């Protein structure tokens, strides 16, 4: 795997606040690389330093082996950017915006084709101000793809979108990768990072506290799966503790939580309950996720 982005000991301070505190990582060509962490963790500062929109205080950075601080326009030609906060003139129409932004680049994608792919064809004559939040976001993705970029930066792509629109965005991002582009995204939704990213860097207070594939991060925790159910007729002694897959059982009122890390936890417990003829309700399994990883690494919950 070739690294397309290299960051070494990046540091950036605003007045007295240390936004990014010496981080290093590389992004491989063709992957979806995610940066997750709470608001203020330093994600946007990092991404905007790489894009050349902000100057780092110290550290080395390169993208396509170019320096963002000195070769900004050459880099801009080859990357696509969706900013966390930006806008277009209120009265510009969707198709005008695409044609306008295409004219800023040497290499151009077909605007009509992009409109079609992002489901904006019917909106092409609408003014920017009349678009819904999701439509605006799709337009910004279209603008980020207008120069057929090699790397696409998506900063807080799905913030403020409803769950359905968010899922549609995930499909779009996978599409972008399918076309052979590298994707660098930031999000404060752990679920989004887990579902979408090949590799995830977890940021907290300007530092990378973990970096790996989502699966490896979760596995590294050694956190157990949980099986949760209620017993409407009260809890007799279940003797689930004796099952080899079960590590411990917690009971509070009629609610039971069974912990275990081995394969087959769910089926073993279910069989035991059936065999004993015990009524149970609302059974669900809870897998450890990136949220648990964050909690374990920082001692805090991620808040939305």
């Amino acid at each position: 795997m070739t690294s397309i982005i290299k960051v070494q000991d990046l540091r950036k301070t605003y007045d007295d606040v240390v936004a990014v505190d010496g981080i290093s990582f590389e992004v491989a060509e063709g992957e979806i690389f995610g940066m997750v962490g709470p608001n203020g963790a330093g994600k946007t500062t990092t991404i905007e330093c790489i894009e050349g929109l902000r100057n780092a205080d110290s550290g080395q950075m390169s993208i396509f082996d170019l320096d963002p601080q000195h070769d900004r326009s050459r880099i801009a030609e080859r990357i696509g950017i969706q900013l966390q906060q930006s806008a277009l003139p209120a009265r510009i129409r969707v198709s005008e915006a695409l044609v306008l932004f295409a004219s800023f680049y040497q290499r151009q994608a077909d605007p009509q084709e992009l409109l079609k792919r992002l489901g904006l064809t019917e909106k092409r004559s609408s003014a920017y101000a009349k678009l819904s939040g999701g439509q605006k976001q799709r337009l910004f993705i279209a603008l980020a793809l207008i120069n057929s970029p090699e790397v696409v930066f998506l900063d807080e792509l799905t913030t403020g979108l409803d769950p359905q629109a968010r899922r549609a965005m995930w499909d779009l991002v996978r599409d972008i990768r399918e076309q052979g582009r590298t994707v660098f995204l930031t999000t404060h939704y752990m679920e989004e990072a887990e579902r979408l990213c090949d590799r995830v860097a977890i940021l907290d207070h300007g530092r990378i506290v973990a970096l790996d594939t989502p699966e490896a991060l979760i596995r590294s925790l050694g956190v157990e799966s949980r099986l949760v159910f209620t017993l409407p007729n009260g809890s007799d002694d279940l003797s689930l503790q004796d099952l080899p897959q079960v590590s411990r059982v917690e009971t509070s009122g009629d609610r039971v939580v069974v912990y275990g890390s081995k394969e087959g936890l769910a089926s073993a417990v279910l069989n035991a309950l059936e065999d004993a003829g015990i009524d149970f309700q609302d059974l669900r399994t809870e897998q450890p996720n990136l949220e648990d990883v964050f909690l374990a690494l920082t001692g805090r919950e991620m808040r939305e």
Partner: protein
Amino acid sequence: MRGLIRLTITNLKLYIREPVSVFFTLAFAPLLVVLFGAMYGNDPSPLFGGYGSMDISMPAYTALILGSVGILGIPIQVGSLREQGVLRRYRTTPMNPLTYITADVITNLIMTLLGMILLVLVGWLLYSVQFEGQVLKVIGALILGGLSMFSFGYLIAGLAPGARAAQVIGMVIFYPMMFLSGAGIPLEIMPETVRKISDFLPLTYVVKLLRGLWFGGSWGEHLLEVAVLVGVLVLCGALTARFFRWE
């Protein structure tokens, strides 16, 4: 180059879709002709060197449009685009910032030129106003006056903290200047004190240059005006380069 042309075309479309700016650039000056024409008519007067009140209002109102576009329009325009994050979005592209400003200046010059044409058309239809100059020279004066007024506008946009502040600063500077520079009301009917003040207002020199060339004067006779306007342009341009912010 392609970006410059496309951005200029897009800016022109956006300009025309904005009712407030269309009113101030295209309709305001012709309305003044209708209003003040009804009050003063256009009879030749010794006070105005044998020209009528509307004759001399043509170059004066052209300067008025330049001033309002530069000092009222540009600061609001740039301030609100910056506040909304539009400028930030442009900055992510390979487009040179100079290309952006150039397209903006060309857009405003074209709109001012349209405003002047409409103004003269109304003046000519209603009062058969006189024109004794050369069209190209007048357009040259329009461009020079425009560049100096616009550079003043970009400087306000660069210094003002937000769109709202830019608007207020623009109004505080523009409205007194409109009355004291001869752009809105001829200086000939003003008391001596006002004429003294007018010497310190850049817009006065736009009025004098346009009026001189309008009635057959030459560039050589207006070196002072040219020098002042070039000075304003260079000073504001340099300060703008220093203080302009994209976000």
